[in-house]
């Protein structure tokens, strides 16, 4: 079955957006495997990556069933290029601020924690709504994912408070990470065509309607963390509309190279 109407295309694009978000952040956070600041955090980060990759698998499997034509979860994850991915730009950024020369150097755990908090607190609201999606398989995936994202928010929230309300150095790093990442959250609220499409047909949620609740949650945690909410201004990124930063290509190259060098390999 090929997506025949605009509504179908929006449905597929929306599922891919959710799946790409999960797989890209799962891959990015997986970079901490073996490099975590402490052993417990190394384990926590990889466990959460596992959750995200599991969610991505369920979503890709669902898309593969809908589009047919030989598509599989693997073909969708490993054989699509950066310019068709629909993840938020926020999720592909390296684990450091803007002014570092090499993507794999100088990882800053504050960036990791702040990003996880900004994204997982959004997904808490999204998965909650998607449990009522008219797409019953998506609703089933949402009912599982929300159980997992609750722990992700708790983890990131606890660390945000610990860093923000910690030493002056950890406070400054957390604030810098927040100032760096906050502008990227503008992309959450600039609704795209496919998001408008699924908002009207009951498959998805009207993302813009979640903004107040999200900001209140953020403000609440930032106050306890003694951090200042930065103003989110400037350029609005467009990852979900398939125009990405340079970082996604490097991330996907690492993730996809094995499958591409050994097509149809099994292990």
């Amino acid at each position, binding site marked *: 079955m090929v997506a025949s109407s605009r509504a179908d295309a929006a449905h597929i694009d929306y599922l891919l957006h959710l799946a790409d978000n999960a797989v890209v952040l799962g891959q990015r956070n997986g970079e901490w495997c073996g490099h975590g600041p402490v052993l417990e955090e190394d384990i926590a980060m990889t466990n959460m990556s596992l*959750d995200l990759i*599991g969610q991505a698998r369920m979503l890709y499997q669902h898309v593969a069933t809908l589009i047919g034509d030989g598509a599989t979860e693997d073909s969708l994850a490993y054989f699509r290029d950066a310019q068709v991915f629909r993840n938020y730009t926020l999720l592909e950024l390296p684990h450091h601020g803007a002014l570092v020369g090499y993507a794999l150097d100088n990882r800053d755990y504050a960036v990791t924690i702040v990003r996880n908090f900004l994204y997982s607190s959004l997904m808490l609201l999204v998965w*909650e709504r998607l449990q009522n999606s008219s797409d019953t398989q998506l609703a089933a995936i949402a009912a599982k994912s929300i159980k997992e994202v609750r722990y992700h928010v708790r*983890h990131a929230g606890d660390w945000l408070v610990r860093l923000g309300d910690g030493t002056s150095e950890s406070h400054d790093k957390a604030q810098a990470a927040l100032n760096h990442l906050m502008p990227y959250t503008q992309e959450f609220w600039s609704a795209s065509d496919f998001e408008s499409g699924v908002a009207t047909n009951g498959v998805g949620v009207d993302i813009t309607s979640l903004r107040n609740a999200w900001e209140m949650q953020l403000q609440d945690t930032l106050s306890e963390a003694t951090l200042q909410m930065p103003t989110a201004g400037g350029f609005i990124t467009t990852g979900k509309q398939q125009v990405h930063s340079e970082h996604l290509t490097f991330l996907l190259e690492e993730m996809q190279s094995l499958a591409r060098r050994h097509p149809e390999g099994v292990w």
Partner: protein
Amino acid sequence: MNGLTTTSRAPKSTAQAGGKAASEILSEIWRALETLTDPEIPVVSLREMGILRDVRGDALHGFEVVITPTYSGCPAMEQIHDDVLATMQQLGHNASVVTQLAPAWTTDWMTAEAHEKLRAYGIAPPLACALSSTQADASDSTTHVLTFARRSATNQKIACPQCASDNTTEISHFGSTACKALYKCLACLETFDYFKPY
């Protein structure tokens, strides 16, 4: 990575049930599947964990065994899938394994026997989801979703599986697997895994 459904083809002769009543065959299957344990926690069976949901069908048309994943990314699911299929093959049945997402697995489905076995194995069993602040707060109204976020589960008393003291503290939200948190007992000073409510 495999798809949602896989079918086993049993040798034709053994698929004949030899005139056994359908209910007898089904209980035979349940007995055989009862020997399958969670690959990560080999003391509890798949049924006790709530992973094995249903067996349906008959000897003539084949059986469908329904399993449900625990965590989305749980790497044990593939092994569980293969174990179920192999067991059905050994019994000589045509069978397929169906992975069903809804209703979503919850630790509340774990049986009382499973709780006891976990404890004896050194893992503190999960509190009921309704008692877990994580679950209760999040399902409420949207503006209060994050009230649980700032502090860890200090108000929840998790008893140490070694010495039964509830003078314990959480070391890390995530333990040896995604489904467990790492705790320390302040009475006997041993660390232990806590199976988190899900």
